[in-house]
């Protein structure tokens, strides 16, 4: 069963910066949202979002997690 990495972003209060708090592995967007909500439940978040890592486009780096994700997606 193919899974994808989704990065998890949260903000605690309205107006806070959205911060990267971690990631989950999931087979689709819906399960990624549930896994994120149940895994990163240590705070009462004002907002939580997930982004499929392959949708993050590296701008200045030619190495690292996001470049690796692009390479995997191309396979």
């Amino acid at each position, binding site marked *: *069963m193919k899974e994808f990495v989704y990065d998890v972003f949260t903000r605690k209060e309205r107006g806070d910066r959205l911060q990267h708090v971690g990631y989950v592995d999931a087979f689709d967007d819906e399960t990624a949202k549930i896994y994120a909500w149940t895994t990163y439940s240590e705070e009462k978040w004002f907002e939580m979002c997930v982004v499929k890592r392959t949708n993050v486009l590296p701008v200045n780096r030619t190495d690292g997690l996001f470049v690796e994700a692009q390479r995997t997606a191309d396979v």
Partner: protein
Amino acid sequence: MSEPLDLSTLDSALRNALSRLIITLADSKRLMGIRYSDWTLGAPSIETGVSTASMAQDEWGHARLLYAMLKGLDIDPGPVEYDRSGAEFASIAPLDHERGDWAGLVALMALADGALSTMLRSFAVGRVELAQNRVPKMLAEEEYHASLGSAWYRRLAETEGEARDLLTSASEEMLPALLAWVGADDASARAMVDAGVIDPAEDRLAAFRNAVRDLVSLVGINVDAVHAATDWDEARGRTGGRPDEEACERARGDRNRALLVE
């Protein structure tokens, strides 16, 4: 929403019917939590294990709130929670035994937890004020369970081989008991319908069938052609059988009793 019922003025038949509904829902939530917790350390991924742990907590929270509703009927929830034998438990039949495979748990998540939500939705819009106030938050939490159950159900149904077969057989096994429970139309159920506590049996059944029709069709089941189980136990408000003793001990917290400080 209809005018709330005054619970202090219910006749004994309606009072018994309402307590039966609450206990069936509460026992089922507690057992559902146990079945989720069985998979916390054996789920297909860490994320799924964390989700089952979270859902187990949700279910136990819901159970506690439901048992507490018995106070509205002047019933002490303590003995109901902690002192009943397994034969008196009223949890729905698909929760009677631990699910030995992940496909079985997915079927529970999608179908049994779905049946519980169908009944809770009906209860929440009825005339019991405690349900009007407490159940909507439970249903909001249940949306995550339904989404996860549906996603996994679709995933396993798309596969070829053992996982799909296990999902199919678990679904076929559960549906008759769930249809019997959701569509109960005995004297107690009718008393609750007449009093506006829950919707009529045909409406509850239609809601449940609509909720699961597309999912179970993925494994070749036509939910409209499935017949309800016939071994209805009117006293407990469930079909025959009982939960296994280990689950009852865990539900009652027997081993924790020694730690209780009065």
